[in-house]
């Protein structure tokens, strides 16, 4: 009898300990935020709603995502209307009070930094422009660090017992990250001032950071797929000043880029717009290294 009650007591103690040590469940809208969460909160259970081969503007509010958001303690998203076509529906359907608008369990990266590309006038005849500005801010390592700092504080707020650890991990990471940034920038110095042709404003922050110039856009208007007529115009515009490369993301249809690359004799680069699902580019460090490597590969004549 004593034995049984002792057993039960141990069992009870064990379950309470487990309940306390329950890892945070984190729903990341995009893989870059999942990667950042893994740096700051390696014990958290993190899922990413999208991956590198998907266009984050056009995700469906799939049943699996509703299930994932239902259990989340924290949702980490980009904001600036990037997820406007699907996140509100997920929030509405998941019935999870923790991740509703204005709650600490909903973190928008775009609210932590100043955005570029804020339009003076929003009119849909100019394409699908975001009134808040360009949401692809994770391609600027400086802004990414600002977001990391804010995210560490948010994690500390949600999980006070872990607060010192989140802040500690942020400081360690930021230290390493700044060295990395300096390294990437010196390696990419030769790219400064060079023109590139790209599709959409996906890489605008990267160009601004490295001093590259987007001389033309494969899209006739933001959010519209490239059309043959527009590609002809792009071709005639870039003939006088050939771009370093034609750049697309890995989720964009490569055909328009291939065509322009053939016509101009410049290489086509399919850059991952976010961290990849596996391989060395599955971390933020590895991903930026890959971006720089790919851009440099275009500038060295082969």
């Amino acid at each position, binding site marked *: 009898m004593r034995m049984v009650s002792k057993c039960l007591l141990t069992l009870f103690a064990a379950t309470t300990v487990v309940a306390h040590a329950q890892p945070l469940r984190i729903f990341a809208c995009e893989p870059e935020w999942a990667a950042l969460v893994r740096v700051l909160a390696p014990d958290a259970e993190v899922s990413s709603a999208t991956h590198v081969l998907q266009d984050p503007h056009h995700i469906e509010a799939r*049943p*699996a995502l509703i299930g994932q958001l239902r259990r989340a303690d924290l949702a980490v998203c980009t904001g600036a209307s990037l997820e406007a*076509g699907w996140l509100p*529906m997920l929030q509405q359907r998941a019935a999870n009070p923790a991740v509703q608008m204005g709650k600490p369990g909903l973190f928008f990266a775009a609210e932590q930094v100043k955005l570029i590309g804020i339009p003076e006038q929003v009119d849909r005849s100019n394409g699908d422009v975001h*009134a808040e500005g360009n949401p692809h801010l994770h391609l600027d390592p400086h802004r990414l660090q600002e977001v990391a700092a804010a995210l560490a504080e948010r994690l500390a707020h949600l999980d006070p017992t872990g607060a010192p650890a989140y802040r500690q991990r942020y400081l360690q990471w930021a230290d390493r990250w700044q060295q990395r940034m300096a390294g990437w920038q010196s390696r990419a110095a030769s790219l400064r001032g060079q023109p590139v042709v790209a599709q959409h404003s996906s890489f605008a922050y990267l160009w601004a950071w490295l001093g590259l110039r987007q001389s033309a856009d494969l899209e006739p208007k933001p959010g519209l797929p490239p059309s043959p007529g527009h590609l002809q115009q792009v071709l005639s515009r870039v003939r006088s000043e050939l771009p370093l490369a034609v750049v697309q993301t890995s989720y964009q249809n490569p055909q328009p880029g291939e065509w322009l690359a053939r016509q101009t004799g410049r290489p086509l680069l399919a850059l991952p717009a976010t961290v990849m699902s596996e391989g060395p580019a599955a971390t933020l460090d590895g991903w930026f290294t890959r971006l720089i490597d790919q851009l440099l590969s275009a500038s060295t004549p082969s």
Partner: protein
Amino acid sequence: MKHNKSLSLLAGNLLLCLSVHAADAIKANAGLPLDISLTLDGGFSSRDIVLGGRERGFALGHTELGASGNIDNRFRGQAAVALHRHEGKTELEVEEAYIETLGLPAGLQIRGGRFLAQIGYLNSQHVHADDFRERPLLYRAFLGQHYFDDGMRLNWVAPSDFLVQLGAEAFSGKTLNHTNSTRERIGTYTLNARLGGDLGRSQSWQFGLSWLRNQLQGEMKGTHDHHHDHAEGVAGEAHTHGASYTGRNLYLVDGVWKWAPDGNNRERQLRVSGEYARVTGLNKFASSADVHNAAYLSLVYRWHPQWEAGIRADALKVREPHDDHFHAGQLEERSVMLAYKPSHFSTLRLQLTQQQDRGGFAQASNTISLNYVMSLGAHGAHGF
């Protein structure tokens, strides 16, 4: 008719009020707590079809003005007024005006007001998100295009990695039975279960079971007297929102499967959906064999961000009550469509619909139509 007039007056005021807000919203841009969306829908069709919701020739379709937003930290609200043609007159109708909880624990959610019933795959989705010009025959025959009503809903979402959702609703039953007065306080009940998830990166699925109980069935005297010859559905009568064929119970099974290479649904996607419905308890004379059945299967393929094509096959089998006996009716319908979507906000659709009378639907017809569905304002997140 008086009811209708006051309703359209109310809707008109609401519309005015919303458009004033819409102007503010455009000025203020992001951060405004109200999302305004306007859906323009219209086109041309060569003929009226049986149980069709659109008139032949030039006609507006489901033109809708909606507003939604968080009311405070506990409630969210949404309203929509839609424009209809009814017997040659244009009417405005409040199709949605509801509030919903945001803060209930344990995956619970309560909704109250006027809203679309959570039954089947399509009913709770907005008509402008449909892939075809008309709702499937099943919806046109049994649910008056789409069933919305005044009532309440309780939903529960399970804490699992795939979706498990259970819902129960109670409604006045007035729109389904097209009546203004009834002895019953609660006219219809529904129960709904939904399961869904992903299969790897490229596939996702959803499966649903629903039951709609119609307490008012049989209460209304002569509910079926007015469509002896099955001609009721020919446009004109169509937008009453009352169901053409009713019974005490409606059972629905629905399934959806979507495939997109690597989950990149913007470039390419195949969508397959199908539903089956069975209506029982037609009246006090009905034996267990006297039931209505309907089903459809739809396939839509997107091969370019701006282009989609689809086919849909519909079938309807009814037992038309005639005093103490029943007349059999059977109708088949096939649709083919091609849609051009220049942007995320606009659709132009060419569609051919062929109806085949298998008994009792002598007015079955074929039609070719061209229509547009375009949206302004808020993005409007869509369901799966």
